[in-house]
């Protein structure tokens, strides 16, 4: 061994010095027995891992549903005064689309939204329309009616609730978290409802889409 290699070898930790020999032994080892305790404990370990994975996915879903509720609440302020509740629903569906699985057949509204996003240059993912279809079928958006006129009274509180049927995809955990299978948008599986509620207060009272053509009264400026 050259002198500089000897010096380097002296500085190496002991486990690193023996590592090549141990690796060689492992690579040549061909024992084919498994401990019974390991075999009996592995399903229990996998069960806990499955539960943790499924709850992690549910926690992620909760965040996305909260974001969808915020988008829907913001939309209520601008869209309810124009008597366009469909925009509130659509805001929630669009926020939940990335979380949703792809289903068939694709809803016409999903295709319209994807085309509109393409026209804007947003470049949504290819399965956007089919995922939007699932989000539309799996989401329930509810809001409390404002007190009095939306236009004439300021500071109207609105409470928006979004209920989303989250598909449970982790084996074993899905059966434990929900007992029965249901079909949503033609997709049969296990689902759990994820709910988020957001309160907003209208700051200004005015009609933003009075003539329903996308511009305030009087047309474009």
């Amino acid at each position, binding site marked *: 061994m050259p002198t500089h290699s000897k010096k380097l070898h002296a500085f190496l930790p002991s486990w690193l010095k023996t590592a090549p020999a141990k690796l060689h032994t*492992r*690579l*040549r*080892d*061909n*024992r*084919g*027995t*498994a*401990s*019974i*305790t*390991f*075999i*009996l404990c*592995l*399903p229990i370990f*996998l069960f806990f891992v499955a539960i943790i994975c499924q709850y992690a996915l549910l926690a992620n879903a909760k965040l996305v549903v909260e974001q969808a509720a915020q988008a829907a609440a913001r939309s209520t302020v601008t869209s309810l005064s124009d008597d366009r509740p469909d925009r509130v629903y659509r805001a929630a569906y669009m926020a939940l689309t990335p979380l949703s699985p792809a289903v068939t057949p694709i809803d016409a509204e999903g295709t319209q939204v994807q085309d509109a996003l393409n026209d804007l240059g947003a470049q949504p993912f290819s399965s956007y329309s089919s995922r939007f279809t699932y989000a539309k079928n799996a989401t329930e958006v509810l809001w409390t009616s404002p007190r009095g006129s939306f236009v004439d009274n300021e500071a109207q509180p609105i409470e928006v609730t979004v209920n989303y049927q989250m598909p449970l*995809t*982790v*084996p*074993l955990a*899905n*059966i434990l978290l929900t007992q029965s299978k249901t079909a949503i948008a033609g997709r049969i599986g*296990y689902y759990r409802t994820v709910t988020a509620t957001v309160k907003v207060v209208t700051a200004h009272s005015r009609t933003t889409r009075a003539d329903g053509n996308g511009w305030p009264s009087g047309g474009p400026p």
Partner: protein
Amino acid sequence: MTDTVQHVLAPQALPDSPPDASALRSPSWLPLWITLLSFSAVLATTALFLPIKPVAENIQPTGLFMFALAAIVCVTAALSDAATNRIPNPLTYTAALLGLLLNCLPVLARLFGFEKLDLWLGAAGPQQALLGFAAAAVFGLVSVAIRGMGVGDSKFIIAIASILGFSHACVALLSALCIATVYALINLAVAGRLNIVLRFAAQQLVDLVCLKKWTPLEAPDIVQDKGFRGKIPLAVPLAIGVTISRFIPLRILTFGLIDA
């Protein structure tokens, strides 16, 4: 039964003139691999033609070469494991390498215009194979580190995951785990006798199908080991699990507990 047990548990009688150990310990694996691949090819071709009649026109039959190869490798490893508690390294290393290479084959075949090769091969693809290899390697390393299973078993799982790909390997290994659990419980209940009976049967089978040449020479120390009752040859439930996972859904094997 007593005679059988004594026969199995008796120390291996040494022959008068010791055989050429180097020749027996490193047999040529090429003939065995040619046999395994030929059997897989025949099975895959037969399976491809069998279900064509009942399958509707719009449903493409799936190729079965990779599955047949995995099943045949499993059976060979299971026989060796049950008979000697060893899974030969030439089998596992070559199977892992072959799995990775064969899973890359459809990509190359498509480049050169042989799209129909997919139909016969039934390969999961290079991504699935690499993912399966990596996941099985991590699982194997952890299992060996905690002394849960032997290194041979880890290598065997890596080989199966490389051949079948990650998704199918997960289903196959979960099926195998169910069977291994049942096997382990039965073996515990009968105080390790199941291992002994299986060992005797496997030794007879190895002799019968001329696999003795490829099984390791040295007598396994596990027979004298007091932990013999607490260990099982994992390749046996793995082989059964991999083979039946294609035909019996995991939902049925797990009594409805696993239903993805």
